[in-house]
């Protein structure tokens, strides 16, 4: 098993790249072949990620030296519990979304869906695995440029409008990323994250200000990706305007920002980082709380189902960020559990909403009345469950997640604020979804007639993909014990950066210069 780990690690980043290029090269004009290759790749990634999670759960941190150049000189991939978990989450999500995309035929609505999708996975996996800060930038760019393509997939004026904004704001974000990375290199002379941790901890007093500044600039970038207020403006429009499948996949995109905050915030700018230690916390906490409220108020004010889904992503990010911002080990495990939950729940909601919108004829996803539509019964059930999952009510994992967070932050100074945020926003969410659901499904049943369902694609498979994601939520809830145990262990690993540093740099820390 562990002998295969290096190969699995390499496969996690190389396979999507090769798949993407191969589809581009040979299957560009063959839809069926592209689909099979894409699905096979997603499935294989799921298996790889599952194997990596199984390995990582043992607690050893694996470091894979690309090009056989040892850290900190070459680039390393690092497998710890957190990165393995993110990999598995990405793969599961991607698999469901790919099934949905194929079932509903959205992949035919524009060019290069499958290569872009594979490259998107490459970017995500690379970002989660890399142990090098500049390489993280590169993979941020890979996943961003792929996301630009996917966001604009199937185009249309609205998509293009928000696309311009999404792209431009992210490009400025990338510039900021480089400012942060560059500054950090300029002061410490290294890029490897473990080595950065060592050097930041040992930095002389006169360098502290520059390190702290770079830390906060980097955190600004990550917060932009995570859509923390006031850097959230790009999200609602972008997510609401893109296709359902892509929006569902994008549920993971904000988590990349959160991941980066967690990773750098515990490893490089963790407890040992001098003046930069947890420097983002006092900013992130109010930002997270504000984001949660903005998200749920936006959800409440939304005029369409898609935009509800988009705002709900924002709301859940707020809750997550507020919990992360406490930077306490007992809140981090719950946060990681919540990452799993909110990603899958957000994606499920997007898919369900998309299914509804494509069946409601001209009314689409607008919060208006429409006559009875195809599969309304099962979709009302799915919508109910997706709403329950999104708001965080039992029996799905959102409730457990919120309980975990409430319990985890209780010793934090800001506990009362976070508690109030979680509880009040949940109530707003209840109200919003109850209004929307009762309008779309209950009140609409007073209308006569039925919407004809011509050329409806993916009747069974599309619904199954959405239902599958909801089943994942139930599973997360049911398997709460092992999952939280894993998440807590991952958190413990994060708050003991020595393990990571030792795994990456060996015992030769600092001896090589």
């Amino acid at each position, binding site marked *: 098993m562990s002998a295969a780990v290096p190969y699995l690690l390499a496969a996690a980043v190389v396979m999507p790249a090769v798949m993407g290029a191969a589809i581009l090269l040979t299957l*560009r*004009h*063959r*839809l069926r072949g*592209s689909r099979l290759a894409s699905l096979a790749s997603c499935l294989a990634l799921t298996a790889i990620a599952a194997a990596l999670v199984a390995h990582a759960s043992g607690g050893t941190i694996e470091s894979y030296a690309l090009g056989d150049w040892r850290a900190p000189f070459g680039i390393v991939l690092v497998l710890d519990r957190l990165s393995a978990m993110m990999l598995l989450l990405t793969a599961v999500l991607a698999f469901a979304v790919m099934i949905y995309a194929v079932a509903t035929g959205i*992949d*035919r609505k*524009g*060019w290069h*869906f499958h290569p872009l999708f594979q490259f998107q996975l490459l970017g995500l996996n690379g970002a989660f695995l890399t142990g090098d800060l500049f390489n993280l930038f590169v993979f941020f760019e890979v996943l961003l440029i792929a996301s630009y393509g996917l966001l604009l997939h199937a185009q249309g004026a609205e998509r293009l409008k928000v696309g311009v904004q999404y792209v431009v704001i992210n490009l400025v974000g990338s510039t900021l990323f480089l400012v942060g990375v560059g500054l950090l290199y300029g002061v410490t002379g290294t890029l490897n994250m473990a080595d950065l941790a060592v050097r930041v901890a040992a930095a002389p007093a006169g360098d502290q200000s520059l390190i702290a500044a770079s830390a906060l600039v980097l955190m600004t970038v990550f917060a932009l990706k995570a859509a923390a207020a006031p850097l959230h403006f790009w999200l609602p429009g972008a997510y609401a305007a893109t296709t359902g499948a892509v929006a569902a996949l994008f549920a993971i995109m904000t988590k990349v920002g959160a991941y980066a905050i967690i990773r750098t915030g515990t490893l490089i700018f963790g407890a040992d980082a001098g003046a930069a230690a947890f420097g983002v916390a006092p900013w992130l906490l109010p930002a997270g709380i504000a984001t949660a409220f903005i998200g749920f108020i936006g959800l409440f004010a939304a005029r369409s189902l898609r935009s509800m889904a988009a705002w709900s992503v924002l709301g859940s990010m707020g809750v997550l960020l507020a919990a992360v911002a406490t930077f306490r080990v007992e809140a981090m495990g719950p946060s990681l559990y919540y990452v799993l939950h909110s990603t899958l729940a957000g994606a499920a909601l997007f898919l369900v909403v998309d299914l509804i919108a494509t069946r409601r004829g001209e009314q689409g996803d607008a919060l208006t009345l429409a006559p009875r539509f195809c599969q309304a019964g099962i979709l009302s059930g799915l919508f109910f469950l997706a709403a329950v999952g999104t708001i965080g009510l039992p029996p799905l994992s959102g409730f457990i997640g919120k309980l975990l967070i409430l319990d985890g932050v209780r010793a934090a100074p800001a506990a009362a604020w976070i508690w109030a945020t979680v509880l009040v926003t949940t109530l707003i969410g209840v109200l919003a979804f109850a209004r929307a659901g009762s309008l779309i499904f209950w009140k609409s049943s007073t209308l006569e007639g039925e919407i004809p369902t011509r050329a409806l694609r993916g009747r069974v498979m599309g619904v199954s993909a959405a239902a599958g994601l909801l089943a994942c939520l139930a599973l997360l809830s049911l398997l709460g014990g092992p999952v939280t145990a894993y998440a807590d262990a991952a958190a413990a690993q994060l708050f003991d950066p020595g393990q990571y540093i030792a795994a990456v740099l060996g015992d030769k820390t600092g001896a090589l210069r």
Partner: protein
Amino acid sequence: MTFAVEILVAFLLVLGGAFILIGSWGLARLPSLMTRLHGPTKATTLGVGGCLIASMIYFPATGGAWSAHELLITIFLLLTAPISANMIAKSHLHRQGHGIDPNPADGIATGLPPAPGGADWATFHGAADDEAPLPAPARRPPGQG
């Protein structure tokens, strides 16, 4: 490096530098674009050529490798400078002829001689391009459109 070579290199450098400055001085001071074109196309090109030849002589003379690749840049410049000038002149001709950014010093709108045999100049024959539209080339996206 012998003194003679040093003198030669120095001379070429001074000459090159001087021509470069003169070329740009012409660009700065001459009264209209057509006259300004004369400075850079010739003086500057030659000036750069002087510097390049200086370099070409200098490296072998100081014990460096045999070096003639500066010649390449010189050839390249000699090849492209007239084309660049020609393109700038053409665009100027075109725009002045149509009264865009009018700058009468070159007498293009008023004093341009006709081509022999009643033909027009390729760039400018008093009329804008108002050709009739031809059908756009069609390309269908294959398979996944």
